[in-house]
């Protein structure tokens, strides 16, 4: 078990090194001739109008909220799924109630129009 995570740690180190090596080699090979027009923002030949870092649509936030609920739920369900064969019928009922509450939340969000794109 410890060996597994040792291997993963080593893998992580090499994986972190990989983009630095690739970008470093490219840095040595590539030409460097910056120009003001070249490094202007690409917007189909036009100057950017107004500020880019604007306030964004709140709709995205609602989806993120629903997502957080369901993602946390599934993390709790994984141990249940692994041990499922050794658990009794009660485990199934319990999980049903657990998911049922969350599905009620989804139904509420659906009904309130949080899932409708405006």
């Amino acid at each position, binding site marked *: 078990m410890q060996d*597994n995570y040792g*291997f*993963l740690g*080593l*893998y*992580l180190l*090499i*994986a*972190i090194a*990989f*983009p*630095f090596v*690739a*970008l470093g*080699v*490219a*840095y040595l*090979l*590539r*030409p460097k*001739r910056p120009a003001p027009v*070249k*490094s*202007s*923002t*690409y*917007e189909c030949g036009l100057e*950017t109008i107004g500020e*880019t*870092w*604007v306030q*964004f649509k709140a*709709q*995205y936030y609602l*989806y*993120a909220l*629903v*997502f957080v609920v*369901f*993602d946390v739920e*599934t*993390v709790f*369900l*994984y141990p249940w*799924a*692994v*041990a*499922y*064969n050794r658990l009794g*019928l009660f485990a*199934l009922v319990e*999980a*049903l109630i657990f*998911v049922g509450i969350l*599905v009620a939340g*989804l139904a509420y969000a*659906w009904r309130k129009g949080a*899932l*409708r*794109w405006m």
Partner: protein
Amino acid sequence: MQVLDDLWIRIAVWFRGLLESFLPPWAVQLTMDVLGILLLIVLGIVVVLAFTYMERKVIARVGDRIGPNRAGPFGIFQAIADAIKMLTKEDVTPTNADRWLFLAAPIVVIIPAVLLYAVLPLGRGMVGVDLNIAVVFVVAMGGIPILTMLMAGWASNNKYALLGAFRTVAQLISYEVPMVVALLTVVLLAGTMSTVGIVEAQASFPFALVTPVAFVVYMLAGLAELNRTPFDLLEADSEIVAGYFIEYSGMKFAMFFLAEYINLFMVAGMITTLFLAGWQWPILPSWLWFLIKVVLVIFLMMWIRATFPRFRIDQMLGFAWKALVPLSLINLFLVALVAKVLEPGWVRTGVLFVSNLALLAGAIAIMAQVARKREERARAAGEAAIKRYYGSEVR
């Protein structure tokens, strides 16, 4: 056959023997680990070169074109020429960009993509590390690119990039939920989260037959997670040019490109591992079976890309939350119930297969009904508008 089956393991054992003759044990282990990791990373790069070439050829053939045919015989060196071009291309950082975040995004995107290969069982006994929580590891690593896309889109200081990033985040988090629930179904059937254990649990029946609904849901969600057609609206060329990586060029762009194709292989590999019995099945060597299945899955994805039009964002998000999430949850409890009532074997597989097909048919029927109603309503609204504008006598 047996020799071919263990070919790579035999080479590894032989090489370890060679090292043991002049190195202390800890150094042997370290060298073997480092070499294995480097091999996996090289595999990732080779995969990218091979599948970009394959994709261009397949798409070209579907569109009745020839595809790349200049660089080498049948254009097979096209991918290498592209790689050299990427490496020697000038790298432009926009003046208005957030420099550090702009540099960090391509670095962070590639690390989890490369790490994912650690848990992919490439053949019998050929896996980087047999982690007992491999499925959760895959989901966790698959979550990091979402962050980098937002980083890239925000740092570019470009409206196309920002729009693309927002769309990406909305899409990826929406499709993560059905994907994770489909994975949960497989974990429940296999009783383990280790990828090797899941492959071994499919010795008699591949899970694609046991639970076709989870297979279809995972396939669709996988396409969405990969940003491939019909879910490619975050890089829809005709709307927002290229999405979040529009300002990237040279090697930084190549990092996003690499990550995308490495993830393509990974999702196809996960579909193979979780639903198509991984490296199992007789006669051919295990690693060859794995490769054949992965290439078939990827070919299917390319075929889909060449065939289907793109979704609109409301359709795409609605499909995830209103169709795939309920469907996958119902399927999870259907599978859980049947697994509790019946013993493993032919009967259980048959019951699950038939009930899953029925569930799928029902879901498609409901969706078709909803689509028909919506179309009727839209047509009625359109006709009413025409009537209001022209008066009642003109049609």
